[in-house]
């Protein structure tokens, strides 16, 4: 399983809620319809106010992001139970969200869908990194490194949920482990 993810980070602050991740007006899109899944990616994090986040996760008219790694502060993904939130990020091409802490349902939805790895940082990476900085996340080693500076930050182990995301979500995991018929 892939353990190392490398690329530029997109940095947000505390309390990024599901309305900012995917504004409610786009919840008319059904994630299990393939073209609507693609479209959700175009809107990932578009609810962030431009005044605070002039650089957008996904460029105008694009479906995918240049930032495979999102860095957040406390309580990332708070708010609604909409699975559209981790799906929008995953559809845009985000592989890992590194946050100081996660809201419960968002964390669970990341794992159940297998869209992305929700990794808790030790400390506030969102204060240390700027959008565009290239970093390398190594899930096995539990570390984030910044090649430019040589800085290294610890992340907490994903534990049991790692295997579920590796498998591609709850159902794939259940089949691979014999909990459900293949």
């Amino acid at each position, binding site marked *: 399983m892939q353990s190392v993810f490398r690329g530029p980070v997109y940095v947000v602050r505390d*309390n990024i809620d599901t309305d900012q991740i995917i504004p409610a007006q786009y919840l008319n899109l059904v994630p299990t319809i393939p073209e609507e899944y693609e479209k959700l990616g175009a809107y990932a994090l578009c609810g962030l106010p431009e005044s605070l986040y002039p650089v957008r996760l996904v460029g105008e008219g694009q479906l995918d992001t240049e930032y495979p790694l999102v860095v957040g502060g406390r309580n990332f993904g708070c708010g609604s139970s909409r699975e559209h939130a981790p799906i929008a990020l995953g559809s845009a091409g985000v592989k890992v969200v590194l946050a100081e802490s996660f809201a419960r349902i968002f964390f669970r939805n990341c794992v159940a869908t297998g869209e992305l790895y929700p990794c808790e940082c030790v400390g506030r990476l969102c204060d240390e990194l700027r959008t565009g900085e290239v970093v390398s996340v190594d899930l096995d080693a539990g570390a984030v490194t910044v090649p430019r500076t040589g800085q290294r930050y610890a992340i907490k182990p994903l534990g049991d949920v790692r295997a579920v995301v590796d498998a591609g979500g709850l159902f794939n995991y259940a089949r691979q482990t014999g909990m459900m018929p293949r």
Partner: protein
Amino acid sequence: MTLTEKLLARAAGKAEVRAGENVWVKADVLMTHDVCGPGTIGVFQREFGAQAKVWDKDRVVIIPDHYIFTADSKSNRNVDILREFVRQQGITYFYDVIDDPNGMWRFDLAQGALKRQYGSQYAGVCHTALPQKGHTRPGEVLFGTDSHTCMAGAFNEFATGIGNTDAGFVMGTGRLLLKVPETMLFRLEGKLQPGVMAKDIILHIIGEIGFDGATYRALQFEGSGIATLSVDDRMTVANMAIEAGGKNGIFPFDARTAEYVEARTRLNGTRQSYEPVELDPDQKVVYELTVDLARLEPTVACHPDPGQRKLAKELGDVQLDRAYIGSCTGGKTSDFVEFARWLRGRRVSIDTFGVPATPEIVHELQTTRWGGERLWDLLVAAGVQMTENAGCAACLGGPVDTFGRMNAPLKCISATNRNFPGRMGHKDSQVFLASPATVAASALAGRIVDPREYLPS
């Protein structure tokens, strides 16, 4: 064990469970709606097969309520997807917008936003409709594809919001793997003063513990003050457990719970048997707070999150553009009654929108009379734009043509439950959460005020 531990132990078929343990629990009811239902159905069919049947056609409850009164074609289509699935599965409880089981739902903009456009089965906002339609019972486990599913904790049940994938799993198996949450205990003592409402209790608590203060935890409410709280009040409090990050909120069972649940299950012909969970003297909790209800004052959660607590009387310099009353949290009959007490014989000074949560509430407001005047007419005479199209409406923004949606960077005081940036529409708008009384008084003043300064005559 705590109430939550007892409920989950029973649902897991175990004598005992402890916080932190992962257990497989049996669902009693799975609820979904038009925003997450089509995706849940998509997951169910993808994983279990196109011909698969839901685990129990009497226990999957489908309530379209979010994006109903909009001309957005995808939103209309999503209601049609639900109808098609219900027909294919033979699902018993589907509260369709239209009466024709073979029809298609299309909202007609030309008729305007205020006049009723739903049929006889439509039930309105899922969390308010579930108890009204007899689907909440003490001692049960309710999963819903909506974070405010925790509202049903008012009825002494374990109720929590889940995503589409988990819901698809429940739809196929009737089970879900859950981590037993730790419990935080809130003792509510005494009685609220006039002008102070249940909403103020929960805004106070969220301000106290922070809006991630209950992440992964259960909020359990106890104390002598609970006897003074109506079923509606308890629903308001339990509804916002999620606004502190909570997994669920739960109340003890009492005669009021029994009376409500028994009346509703009988009226609707739903399952009438239930077994409540009782308080245990030796429960282990991770936090305790006593709230003296008599000392609470009208409270506001300021932009941009539900934890930004201030007293209404401290915010007099916040000028407002609009006021809004509605949603699961703040759109119940009792909310509108209190709202109307403040507005009777007066007139709002800013744009004010009223969206009852359910058609039943619309009916109650249109048939209740104060001194010969219908409550509904009293509100309209006070300048409130009242719509008969009960639903979630602008509480969560929704499609751009949604009634009451903020399509400009406005400031709104609202009886709803969430105020993150962009929640009610425009991402530079600001939402201040408050009780119906505080919303009413502020709508009169055009700025945030303590409703006790505007006591009804």
